[in-house]
């Protein structure tokens, strides 16, 4: 397989893909508007290519990608469902696509109406009283929710410094709690995969600000004791935060608000079918019960006298958490999805997602260890412990799946399961796809017995073979430097440590 040169390496001086018209406004000399220290001394080293070069370069790269439009993508807890193209059409309507965030609000009533209506829809789905659409991702939604919880306790004159998080939680939960200034306390799972109630009671106290939970949790299991947990948490004066990453499992069936949660975020790019996987943009709206409403990020989008307004007069607000009003294009796509599905459609999403996951789990259960053998919700977790003893690790199984044209599931998470494989098929996959995936997995298990080297050295059919993930992490080369050869793998001078911060 040939390697693709960088766009910079295709550059030839003077080649152009664009032909700009003559400037039709008076030119302003850069010296007049920029002080000397902000002016660059040399022109930027931008690649100079023709349009065919440009198109072929990026088309070639895109053909090496895997996405939901290409094939099955059962990445657990990521809900890689198909994104209906009608969402894209809605987001491209000129009235949505061509507005400017600095336009006076009274010139964009349609956009504001969409935001208000989406907030109402998400409040109905989650059982909350008010919603902010500002957070740009799930983790930012968590952080926003926790900042509101912190402001709430402070407003009551209470000092609560810890957040309790189950050991099965998404890694973002403890990270968000720490970023919001809390100390994280972990609570273990019991042998059915739920929160250990006795252990929870031991750590709940006057210093507890909140318990963060995902329900169903990352094992794909519904928290059976949620009512008792909510009661204990509220008795101690703490609040309950719902990580909505797994909301696909409960749409139209139950609601965080009904389970006793006080604040919740939803990942529109998961549950509401907006694209993700390429790094964004996403959206992580936060919903709260009415007593937390004064703390919502400002401006609050709300109805007043038959119109929708941007309300900045929020003295108790935690402030703005996103420039302007959030990732608006994502909100349009999510609203289109919400309205197209309707209440019945959303219920069927949850039913089909759960059915698909249970079907796949039962097909694979004879071939892997099943750490928690219960009916699952939208995803399930297998253990590759049996294969590991035979010398084939979960990482090898994941790499071998690429040869069959499937994106691997999430691996080595949740942390409490040895050699974990976390599989979320979503509702948008057909029986044929599920069967083809199951057959590939079963064949890999057989290979692990009969010809383990085939699995250990996979993938064999992809554009590049097994990557050296360790070296990529220890010595990442993140920058193209003019005049430097692209590769000199053993060059100790590679800007490894210095560039590390830039990867995060």
């Amino acid at each position, binding site marked *: 397989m040939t390697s693709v040169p960088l766009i910079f390496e295709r550059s030839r001086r003077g080649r152009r893909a664009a032909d700009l018209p003559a400037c039709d406004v008076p030119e302003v000399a850069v010296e007049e508007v920029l002080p000397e220290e902000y002016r660059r001394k040399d022109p930027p080293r931008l690649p100079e290519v023709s349009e065919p070069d440009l198109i072929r370069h990026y088309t070639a790269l895109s053909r090496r990608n895997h996405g939901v439009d290409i094939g099955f993508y059962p990445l657990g807890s990521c809900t890689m469902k198909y994104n209906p193209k009608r969402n894209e059409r809605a987001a491209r309507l000129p009235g949505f696509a061509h507005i400017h965030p600095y336009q006076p609000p009274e010139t964009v009533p349609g956009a504001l109406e969409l935001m208000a209506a989406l907030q109402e829809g998400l409040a109905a789905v989650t059982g909350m009283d008010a919603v902010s659409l500002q957070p740009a991702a799930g983790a930012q939604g968590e952080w926003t929710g926790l900042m509101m919880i912190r402001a709430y306790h402070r407003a009551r004159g209470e000092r609560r410094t810890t957040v309790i998080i189950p050991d099965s939680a998404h890694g973002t939960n403890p990270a968000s709690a720490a970023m919001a200034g809390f100390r994280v306390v972990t609570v273990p799972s019991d042998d059915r995969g739920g929160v250990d109630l006795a252990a929870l009671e031991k750590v709940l106290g006057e210093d507890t600000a909140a318990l963060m939970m995902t329900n169903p949790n990352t094992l794909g299991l519904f928290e059976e004791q949620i009512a008792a947990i909510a009661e204990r948490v509220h008795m101690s004066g703490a609040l309950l935060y719902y990580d909505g990453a797994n909301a696909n499992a409960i749409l139209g069936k139950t609601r965080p608000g009904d389970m006793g949660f006080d604040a919740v975020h939803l990942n529109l790019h998961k549950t509401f079918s907006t694209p993700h996987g390429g790094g964004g943009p996403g959206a992580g709206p936060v919903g709260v019960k009415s007593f937390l409403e004064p703390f919502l990020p400002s401006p609050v989008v709300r109805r007043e006298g038959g119109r929708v307004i941007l309300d900045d007069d929020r003295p108790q607000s935690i402030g703005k958490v996103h420039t302007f009003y959030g990732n608006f294009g994502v909100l349009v796509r999510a609203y289109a999805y919400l309205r197209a599905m309707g209440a019945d459609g959303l219920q069927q999403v949850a039913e089909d997602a759960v059915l698909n996951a249970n079907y796949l789990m039962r097909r694979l259960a004879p071939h892997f260890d099943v750490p928690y053998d219960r009916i699952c919700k939208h995803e399930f977790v297998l253990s590759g412990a049996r294969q590991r003893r035979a010398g084939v690790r979960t990482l090898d199984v994941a790499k071998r799946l690429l040869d069959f044209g499937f994106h691997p599931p999430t691996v080595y998470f949740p942390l409490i399961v040895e050699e974990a494989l976390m599989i979320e098929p979503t509702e948008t996959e057909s029986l044929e796809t599920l069967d083809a995936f199951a057959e590939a997995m079963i064949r890999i298990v057989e290979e692990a017995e009969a010809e383990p080297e085939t699995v250990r050295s996979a993938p064999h059919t992809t554009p590049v073979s097994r990557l050296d993930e360790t070296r990529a*992490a*220890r010595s990442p080369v993140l920058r193209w430097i003019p005049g430097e050869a692209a590769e000199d793998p053993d060059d100790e001078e590679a800007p490894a440590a210095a560039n590390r911060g830039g990867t995060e």
Partner: protein
Amino acid sequence: MSQVPKELKYSEEHEWVRVEGNRAVIGITDFAQSELGDIVFVELPSAGAEVKAGETFGTVESVKTVSDLYAPVSGKVVEVNGDLGDAPEKVNEDPYGAGWMIVVEMSDSKELDQLMDANGYSAHVSAS
């Protein structure tokens, strides 16, 4: 099987302690490094920081996962293994030697009694 040197003390969270007078040299065990896989980044406190037994003092990141490091004893950090910044692989290659992480001046050496000896730790590992 992973190595468990006789002369060290061990925590349930897979840290080891070598006692040198009032000083405790701390790292992670051979079992821990082998479970984590190739380690790519180690985040440690600065010298002078206070650590508390049972609480986190840093993180260790491998290709697979990121894990917290838990202080087996309380006290003040007096030395930090700066070499791990450029060469985190030392934790994999030599967990009980060049892969050491911090030295703590213990504030309460009685905390050592809470730790396991080599036999206890070996049993802990086979049970988990």
